[in-house]
């Protein structure tokens, strides 16, 4: 199971805010935002809520679960 996200889309909807500006707003480094967007890093609940609050959305609107087993079986 993986954690997917719509952060990239949210950033563009939010006046095309840069990764650095978003990182500054939620108190992390730009690399952290980059890694979350790429799905390489799973943020803590605290950070997920901070991101959701920044975009004025619910956490579920930004993050979602990807069932990798289903995804794989769907492909085959």
């Amino acid at each position, binding site marked *: 199971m993986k954690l997917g996200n719509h952060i990239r889309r949210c950033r563009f909807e939010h006046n095309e805010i840069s990764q*650095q500006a978003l*990182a*500054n707003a939620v*108190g*992390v*480094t*730009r*690399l*952290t935002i980059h*890694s979350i967007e790429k799905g*390489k*890093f799973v*943020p*803590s609940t605290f*950070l997920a809520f901070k991101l959701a609050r920044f975009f004025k959305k619910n956490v579920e609107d930004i993050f979602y679960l990807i069932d990798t087993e289903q995804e794989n079986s769907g492909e085959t």
Partner: protein
Amino acid sequence: MKKGFLITNITASFFAVVSIGWLIYDFIAYGILRGKMLQLEPLTSLDEKLGLFIWLGVLVFLIFHIVSFLAIASQFQFFKKAGALRVIALLLAIVSCIFILDDIACLSDIGKEYQEGLEVEFEWRSLYRSSALHGLFFLVMLANLIQALYRRTEVKPGEAAVHDVTIFTLVHAVGVLCSGIGLFGAFAALIVQRSHPLLHITFPFLFILSLIPYGLLAGYWLIMKVKEKPENWYDEKQFRDISRAALLTMFTTIPLMALIYILTYNAPKNPMDILWFPVYLYWVIFCFSLGSLYFNWNN
């Protein structure tokens, strides 16, 4: 932060000018002393005073290198980006700092061997090469300082990152470089100078000089972070990255130290008696810094 930037960079500029002047003096003094020493002519009291000021110059150069590392660290933090001149100045500063060991060794050897009536041409050549490297560093560093002080007004407040990665990356990159040089020096000492009688005198100098850049930058980072709460020292991804790097360090250090222990168990008076601690420390810094950089950039 701007105050710290100004203090370190202006102090470094002062020492840069003094060091360049002192290096010119050194070259003049070398010219006077070298001719007499190669001909084994007796030295006058004036010549001995010239020699004393050369030794004082080594101390001034060491102070300049220390101030330079602090100035470069403050520049990285202030501008939040690397810059070619800054990176070149940093690399030259590390190599030049280690070559202070060469200055000390050559000056000692020249003095001792001259008193014993031995040939010192090789040491003089080595001293000139080392001085040329210092000269190159002094000029590049001065250019870097002038550029940094000139461009300080270009940085606008609010543009910079709140959680900065520049110092994090810088400390670990310098850690990889310094410990890499140290490991190379330790293994070279182990292989080439197995029977070197002065290993216990020369190696501590290399050990200290090679760790000065890393120690200063890590100390600078720590001073910057002391003002913050410990939980804010790293963001959560950085914390995960250094945790992975620490695990990697532990898993690689234990087999290495076990191997050294086994190989030297029945070898009394082995160079490893002196080298085990520097090798251990260099290895830990190397693995931890390289691991931190790798995980930070690739995950």
